[in-house]
């Protein structure tokens, strides 16, 4: 817990009516620091220190992680090239947030960026509209200390090259449905992981706990992670799944989930199917949870690496995300490509006749 409280630098952001964005810095060690920055459109309030949080328990004695959560964040996975420090100041966080919010809200004006012809706010693509986890860190990666993914091993590089070559051999994404990404095919979203990483929109989760289980409902594609807590082993090596096989246990107030048996068809940042993942969920206070993960895949990276993602309470319910059932886009992409080929062929034929 101490490590969590010292390293989790949360700030909380709310979008008030009229477009005023309030960022609540809830960093325990910053609570005494006068956070006076009143950036334009951003309002900063010190929040109660995390130490006041007393763990709540479910009726069967599990620390209570239940509720609706989001892992939306502006913090990049890897530290940007031009940043040399591990932490921003709260003022810099606000500045960054304001800049990002301005960029995203500019996209809400149809015609301001190429190919955008609808109002992004209608689709929730402007992240500043919803709750968000804030973090003083300059990268989600906390280990190695440079905030960057460790160098890829020779085997990892070879695999990446082979995968790129295989993609090339298969042809263009519009040549066949199987050439499209699992995400576009509504099979699985990258962010569902595990590890679970936010993206542009719908980064919402519901945790429900019953005796012996933690269930995490992922909004995207109504994916469910059902985590047994009874210490059962992983399935045999030949039984593999897109999201792997997850087994959980409580270490004090922290839920620890170990995942193995990935099928390698949606590799996390080039990982092998033998990647082992350890996730740790720790409730920090009523509205915040620390999500830590460690990726261990010696076939891909020279060292294990770890990241911390702030999770923030949000509001439910999660509505049914029937992705495949409504995937008109897939049909249209493929049918559109075939129609264009036909038109090009007809034009070429016409040219010959002329």
């Amino acid at each position: 817990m101490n490590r969590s409280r010292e390293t989790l630098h949360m700030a909380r952001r709310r979008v008030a009516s009229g477009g005023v964005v309030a960022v609540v810095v809830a960093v325990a060690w910053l609570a005494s620091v006068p956070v006076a920055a009143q950036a334009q459109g951003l309002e900063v309030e010190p929040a109660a220190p995390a130490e006041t949080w007393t763990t709540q328990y479910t009726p069967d004695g599990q620390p209570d992680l239940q509720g609706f959560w989001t892992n939306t964040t502006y913090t990049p996975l890897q530290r940007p090239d031009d940043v040399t420090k591990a932490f921003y100041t709260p003022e810099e966080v606000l500045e960054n947030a304001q800049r990002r919010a301005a960029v995203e809200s500019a996209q809400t004006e149809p015609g301001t960026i190429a190919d955008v012809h609808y109002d992004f706010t209608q689709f929730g693509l402007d992240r500043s509209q919803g709750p968000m986890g804030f973090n003083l860190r300059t990268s989600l990666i906390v280990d190695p200390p440079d905030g960057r993914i460790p160098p890829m091993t020779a085997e990892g590089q070879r695999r990446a090259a082979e995968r790129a070559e295989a993609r090339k051999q298969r042809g263009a994404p519009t040549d066949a449905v199987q050439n499209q990404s699992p995400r576009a095919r509504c099979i699985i979203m990258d962010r569902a992981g595990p590890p679970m990483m936010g993206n542009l929109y719908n980064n919402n989760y519901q945790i429900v706990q019953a005796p012996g289980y933690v269930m995490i409902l992922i909004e995207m594609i109504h994916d469910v992670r059902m985590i047994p807590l009874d210490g059962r082993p992983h399935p045999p090596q030949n039984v593999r799944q897109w999201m792997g096989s997850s087994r959980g246990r409580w270490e004090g107030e922290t839920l620890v989930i170990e995942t193995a048996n990935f099928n390698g068809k949606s590799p996390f940042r080039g990982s092998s199917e033998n990647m082992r993942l350890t996730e740790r969920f720790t409730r920090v206070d009523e509205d915040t949870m620390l999500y830590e993960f460690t990726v261990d895949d010696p076939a891909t990276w020279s060292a294990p690496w770890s990241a911390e993602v702030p999770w923030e309470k949000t509001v439910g319910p999660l509505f049914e995300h029937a992705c495949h059932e409504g995937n008109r886009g897939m049909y249209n992409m493929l049918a559109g490509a075939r129609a264009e080929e036909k038109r090009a062929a007809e034009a070429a034929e016409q040219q010959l006749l002329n």
Partner: protein
Amino acid sequence: MAAVLWLAVTVAAGQTPAYRAPRSADGTPDLNGIWQALNEANWNIEGHSAAPGPVMELGAAAAVAPGLGVVDGGPIPYRPAAASQRQENAENQLTLDPEIKCYLPGVPRATYMPYPFQIIQTQQYIMMVHTYAGAVRTIYMDDHVEAPADSWMGWSNGRWDGETLVVDTTGFFHSDALHVVERYTATGPDHLLYEATIEDPNTFTRPWKMSMPLYRRVEANAEIMEFRCVEFVEELMYGHLRKEVDQ
């Protein structure tokens, strides 16, 4: 023998349960567990004879297994137009059955597909997590609201009626008048009686009911596994749109 079995099922469905389930922390019957229907309803919920399957090449492996049905009290009271639609659907299963395309199955179909589902029960939410297509239902035990929009699995409000979990579901794509009321009652440590009353005046002349036992998957290692069937149906759905390669 068949008649005896039919009678036994009917009697069981109509009985008032004497069994008192173990209690969850809030004092309600504890329905947590992994459950599965064991019957032939997935081929046809009405009584039916054995028949060939829709794909000749699959022979007996995909043939229709005979069943006595799970509908209480006679044939489903279809309106004439609905009966014709049902006939058309049955004759064109390969193109009209949503299961062929790995679409969400709706309710009550999700319950009697031949795969396990898990109940995660709390005072506020009861989750039903299905193997097939990763279908999931949230049963709202507090804060009952009307379905905010139509969906495949519907919008479910739940309440306890003594020993029975009653789930009221509306907001389906299938028909805007479809209203399903399900009752889940433990009849023993490893059995639930499942009853579903279907009401849809657009489709049926009167409400009707199906019932069947659900069985606990008692294996120590039982778990809901990934049955992400989308990739298995893509060639069927989009294969005709594949780019033609010059020979």
